[in-house]
C-alpha cells in the first residue's frame, strides 16, 4: 500500500542577501504509513515548519520529492491538496470580521462541499470543537485558544485523509489541550494520518506512534517514543533527596556508575550502566537512611535534550 507521506532527499535553501544560502532542510528522508500519528520535534528554526509548508504545497523544495497518498506535491499539487488538511500555527489566518460559522462555510466551499453537505459538516465541526454556542459571533472577539480550535475545524472541514498540524496546541489552555488530544485519538481511530509539529514532549509521547527529531535541517532520529528512550539511554537512573555528601562521594566511585549530578530541583541523580550497578546504588543510598528514592528511565523530553543539546533560547541554523 502507498505510504501516506513519503519524503525523499528533500532540501530547501533560502537566498540571504550578502550571505551564503541558508539551508533550512538538508536532505530529509521520511516515510509515514497510513493511519500513523507522527510528531515532528525540534527547536525553533530546526526546519519543522518548512517541511510542513512543502508538504502542504505552499513552498517548493529545492530538491527531492514529496508525495502525499501517492500524489507528488509539486507536479501533482491539485490532487495532493485534495487529500490534505492543513493547520498552520498561530492565531492569525482567519477572517476576524466574520463569524466562526461564516469562516468555516467559506473554507468548506473552497473544498467543493455543496450547500447541504457544507451546513452539516460545519455544524458537526463547531459542535466537536466546543464552539457551537459562539458559532455566530465574530472571530475577533475569540480567545487565542478558541481561534486555534477554529483553525483545527478548518483543517478538518474537507474530511482529509492526511492532516498536517503545525504547532496545533499553541495558545490552548490545559483543558482545551486535553480535548485536542482526545480529538487526535478520535481522528486516528478514523484511520487518518496525522503529522504534527510540537514542542510539547508529553503531547508527542502521549499521542504519537512515532516521533522524529529534526535539528538544523537534519532528521536526527525517527522511532516510537518508547524505543527512542531505550536507544538513547540503556542507562537506568536513580533519583534521591537528602543524600549526605559522603554518600555522594561513595556513589561516584561505584563500578557501573556513569554520572552523578544534581537536578535544578535539588535531586541527586545517579545514572548507571547496568542493573547490577543500579542495585549497588540503591543499597548504598538506603543504607545511609535515605528513603526518598525513585528509579526511572529517561523521558522523551530528556531524549530531546540529549539529541538536540541544551540550546536554551537559541534558534537553529
Amino acid at each position: 500500500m502507498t505510504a501516506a507521506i513519503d519524503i525523499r532527499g528533500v532540501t530547501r535553501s533560502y537566498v540571504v542577501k550578502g550571505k551564503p544560502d541558508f539551508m533550512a532542510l538538508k536532505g530529509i528522508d521520511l516515510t509515514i504509513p497510513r493511519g500513523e500519528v507522527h510528531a515532528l520535534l525540534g527547536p525553533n528554526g530546526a526546519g519543522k515548519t518548512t517541511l510542513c509548508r512543502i508538504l502542504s504545497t505552499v513552498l517548493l523544495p529545492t530538491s527531492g520529492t514529496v508525495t502525499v497518498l501517492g500524489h507528488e506535491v509539486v507536479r501533482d499539487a491539485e490532487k495532493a491538496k485534495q487529500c490534505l488538511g492543513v493547520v498552520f500555527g498561530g492565531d492569525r489566518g482567519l477572517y476576524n470580521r466574520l463569524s466562526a460559522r461564516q469562516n468555516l462555510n467559506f473554507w468548506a466551499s473552497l473544498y467543493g462541499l455543496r450547500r447541504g453537505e457544507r451546513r452539516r459538516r460545519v455544524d458537526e465541526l463547531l459542535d466537536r470543537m466546543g464552539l457551537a454556542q459562539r458559532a455566530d459571533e465574530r472571530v475577533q472577539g475569540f480567545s487565542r485558544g478558541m481561534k486555534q480550535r477554529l483553525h483545527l475545524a478548518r483543517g478538518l472541514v474537507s474530511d482529509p485523509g492526511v492532516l498536517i498540524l503545525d504547532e496545533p496546541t499553541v495558545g490552548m489552555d490545559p483543558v482545551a489541550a486535553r480535548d485536542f488530544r482526545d480529538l487526535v485519538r478520535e481522528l486516528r481511530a478514523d484511520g487518518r494520518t496525522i503529522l504534527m509539529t510540537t514542542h510539547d514532549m508529553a503531547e508527542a509521547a502521549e499521542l504519537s506512534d512515532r516521533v522524529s527529531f529534526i535539528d538544523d535541517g537534519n532528521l536526527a532520529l525517527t522511532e516510537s517514543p518508547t524505543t527512542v528512550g531505550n536507544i538513547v539511554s540503556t542507562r537506568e537512573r536513580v533519583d534521591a533527596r537528602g543524600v549526605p555528601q559522603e554518600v555522594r562521594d561513595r556513589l561516584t566511585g561505584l563500578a557501573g556508575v556513569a554520572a552523578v549530578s544534581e537536578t535544578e530541583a535539588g535531586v541527586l541523580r545517579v545514572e548507571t550502566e547496568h542493573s547490577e550497578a543500579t542495585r549497588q546504588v540503591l543499597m548504598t543510598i538506603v543504607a545511609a537512611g535515605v528513603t526518598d528514592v525513585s528509579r526511572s528511565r529517561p523521558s522523551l523530553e530528556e531524549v530531546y535534550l540529549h539529541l538536540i543539546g541544551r540550546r536554551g533560547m537559541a534558534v537553529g541554523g
Partner: protein
Amino acid sequence: MPGFGAGFEFQIVAMRGQADTYFSLITAPFFALVFMSIMEYSGRTDLNSHAVIAPMLITMWTAALSFSGEMISEDRENGRLESLIAAPMSFAMLLFGRLCACMLLALPSFLMSYLAAGSVFGYWLSFEQPLLFASALVLTAAATAATATALSAVFVIAPGARSVQNTLSFPVYLLGGVLVPVSQYPGWLEGLTRIVYLSWGADLLRAATTPGAELENTICYLVMLGLLGATAFALGRLFISRFLQRARALGALAKE
C-alpha cells in the same frame, strides 16, 4: 468554475458586515446631480442618460481599484494566503468571483443616480432596450472584475504600482468614455480608447437607455466587450500564476 462560486458567496457575506464597503455609494447621487446640472445648463438634455449611467460606471471602477489593491495583500498580511493556496481550487477564479461580487455595488449606485436625477431634475431614465441594457451591464461588470483580477496580481507583484492606484481613476474615466462618448474625442484618441473595455460598455449602456439611439453593430460591441474582458482575465490568470510560482519558490506567501 472551481473557486468562483466560493469567492462570490464569500465576498457578499464579507461586504455585508463592513460599513466602509458602502462609502463609494455615497458619491454616486452627487455625481449624477453634478453631471445632470452640466447637461441642463449646456442645453444638452439629449445626453441626460449619460449623466445617470456614468456614476454607476464610476462606482464599478472605484470598487475594482479599491478591492483589487487590497485582496491579496490583506490575505497575505493576515496569514490567510497560505491556507487559501493550500486549498484545491483556482486562486484566480476565487479572486474573480470575489471581484464580481464587488461589482454588485454598481446596482445600488445606479438606483441612487436614477432616483437623484428623477427627483431633482425630473428626468427618469427610460429603458428602451432592456435586454441589451441587462447584457451590457453583466458584461461590463464581468470585464471590470476581470481587469481588477489582473490589477490585483500587478499590485502584489510590484508593490510600487499601488502608489499609482489612485491616479488610475480619471484616465480610465476619460479613456472609457464614462461621461462623454469616445466618438466625440479627436480621431487619434478615439483609437486608443477602443482598447479600453469600458468604452464599449458605456456606449452599449447609453444606447440601451437613450430614445432613438442605435449602434451600428450592437453584436460587434458586445463581442468586443466580451473579448477585452476575457483578455484581461487571461492576463490576470497568467500574472497570478507567475506570482504564486515565484512566492512558492522564494517562500514569500506568508508575511510575518
